[in-house]
């Protein structure tokens, strides 16, 4: 389901950085959301992008999430710019792929339709709201997958 070829990503970065020489390396940020979250309860966590390089976000994953949390929601907001990733909370399986649930056929969504460039020091707020019917009992991690970008 990959929509990003290496050539397309390089072209995207060249356009964003005006063709300057770059050092790019695959990277991911893992944000621990928590466990034992009551049904319908919300938890907010903050993720800080490293200060010495930018991060090109290409996909989001939710790790250790139970199938029963299909009714949970997530809202990610860039605290630096105030920009949300969505117009309101969206179902977690729409925003994040859920690889742990593949055995039961849950889809591998989560790849962004277009890369999102997060500048160094960007702070993200991630708000998770558990299913109205089931508490979250496992340890939930949200993983931001993409690449570090810095001047060569």
């Amino acid at each position, binding site marked *: *389901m*990959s*929509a*990003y*070829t290496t*050539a*397309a*990503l390089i*072209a*995207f970065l060249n*356009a964003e950085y005006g063709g300057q020489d770059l050092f790019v390396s695959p990277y991911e940020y893992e944000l621990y959301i928590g466990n034992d979250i009551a*049904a319908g309860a919300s938890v907010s966590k903050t993720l800080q992008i490293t200060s010495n390089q930018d991060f090109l976000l290409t996909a989001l994953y939710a790790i250790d999430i139970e*199938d*029963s949390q*299909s*009714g949970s929601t997530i809202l990610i907001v860039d605290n630096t710019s105030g*920009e949300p*990733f*969505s*117009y*309101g*909370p*969206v*179902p977690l*399986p*729409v*925003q994040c792929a859920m690889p742990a649930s*593949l055995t*039961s*056929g*849950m*889809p591998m*969504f989560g*790849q*962004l*339709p*277009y*890369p*999102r460039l997060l500048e160094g020091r960007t702070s993200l707020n991630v708000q998770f709201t558990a*299913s*109205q*019917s*089931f508490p979250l009992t496992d340890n939930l991690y949200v993983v931001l997958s993409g690449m570090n970008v810095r001047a060569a």
Partner: protein
Amino acid sequence: MITCQKFDLRDLNDFLATMWGGRRIKAKPFLYPVNFGAIAGGGTANETLTIAGDSDFVFTSSYVNLINSGGAVVTSVGWTLLITDTGTNEKYMDSAAQVPNYCNDIGNSNANRAFIALPIPRRLARQTTLSLTLENVSGVAVDFATVVLEGLRVWEYSQ
């Protein structure tokens, strides 16, 4: 309405360059959720969605998530969706589409299914208002029905 995967990044950039005539723009991935709440078996619900006033939206694909009273996700088989641009009265389909053919269904447990995207992206101007009508022909009631429009939020630089 089925294509097998998300749009290629270069194709999207070509689309943006064509639609904006090469003007300077900034595009970012974005989701517009539309929450319908509870819908009874055989029931119909209608919601409107207004695109943000500061940016256009390039609609590429959609999702549906149906949660029953027990908190479990259920399939959208037997559901239909009609989207109408209330400004132009343009319908996005000839008649209400079968949801499993139009939206990526969180409740579809077929692991081998293809990703569903529009055959070509659709540009929605800022402040466009859409009317979405979701009909539950399946007879199975749900407590939460959500349709999510996925795509790109596009800002145009003033200079």
